[in-house]
């Protein structure tokens, strides 16, 4: 299974940003009501088992707030890394 880490303090919140939620093909991430120290609402992981490890959220995060460690056992195609 892929592993998602959210650095809450670096995040600028899903209200005005939320790009991670938008680019996730499997709706792994959702909003939350829990503020970080500067008042933003970082996302939370709804169901990590749905994560394919595509890293879209990590690559598109403007604030270096998400790290996704890929499940090395799955090939890239299966992880659904988009290359539009």
């Amino acid at each position, binding site marked *: 299974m892929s*592993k998602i*880490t959210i*650095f809450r*303090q*670096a995040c*600028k*919140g899903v*209200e*005005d*940003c*939320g*790009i991670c*939620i*938008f*680019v996730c093909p499997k709706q792994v991430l959702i909003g939350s009501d829990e503020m970080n120290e500067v008042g*933003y609402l970082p996302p939370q992981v709804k169901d990590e088992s749905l994560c394919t490890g595509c890293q879209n959220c990590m*690559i*598109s*995060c*403007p*604030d*270096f*707030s998400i*790290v996704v*460690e890929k499940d090395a056992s799955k090939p890239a195609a299966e992880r659904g*890394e*988009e*290359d*539009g």
Partner: protein
Amino acid sequence: MSVSAHPFRRYMRNHVTRTTTCPGCGNGIITQAILRAIDELGLDMDDFIFVSGIGCSAWIPSPLFAADTLHTTHGRPIAFATGIKLCLPEKNILVASGDGDLAAIGGNHLIHAARRNIDMTVVLVNNGIYGMTGGQTAPTTPRGLTTITSPHGTLEHTFDICAMVAAAGASYVTRWTTYHPRQMTRSIKKAIVKKGFALVEAISQCPVQFGRAAKLGKAVDMLKHFKENSIRIDKARNLDEEALKGKIVVGEFVDIEKAELASEWARLKQEVMEV
């Protein structure tokens, strides 16, 4: 938590803990694309000199990157970078700055650096507006858009920066949006490796100024707009002007090999000194 920090933290200055951008700004996506390109090429930050001008995107490398960074005057980063490259030809020079900086006030330097084909990578962040100064019309603002300084809609045509830089003679010219971070990363890698002037135009969202002016909504809505309106250059070639209206043509426009200025200087010095 299985990781204690983002892997790219190692490319950032220790004391700089946060990016200096508004929530949802595209600058951070482009910042990561630059660092990912350097990471995937296996290069070190000390192999680079980063140069930027003035504007929000001028803060992509400065102060964030743990490297030599030169934050210059408005419009002039390419001119500064030219002097640096000629004196440190073995280093990679990466300029990151905005459309107002590089294509409006600094347009002349952009043209002439492309003409000289001096080896540097220019990541031009195009958000279509002056963000930092409060949302004024830029040369890149879509015609008709209402902004602070075009309250009745802009009357002017929009600048096609890639076409201009290609015409001026650059070795490598490409355009992507922040909806294409993987493609952008690949292009930045090619641009860094390319011996010559390489332009990566990064169409980016400014949800605070542009998003409001264009009534495009928030960052996510703007990314959705990029997704729906981007069209690859190979497809765009077959379409007429009407069909391309409002579209963002993305892809590689130029990828050629030609004599590069810093190498030509090395050759010339060798020749003249040996006479």
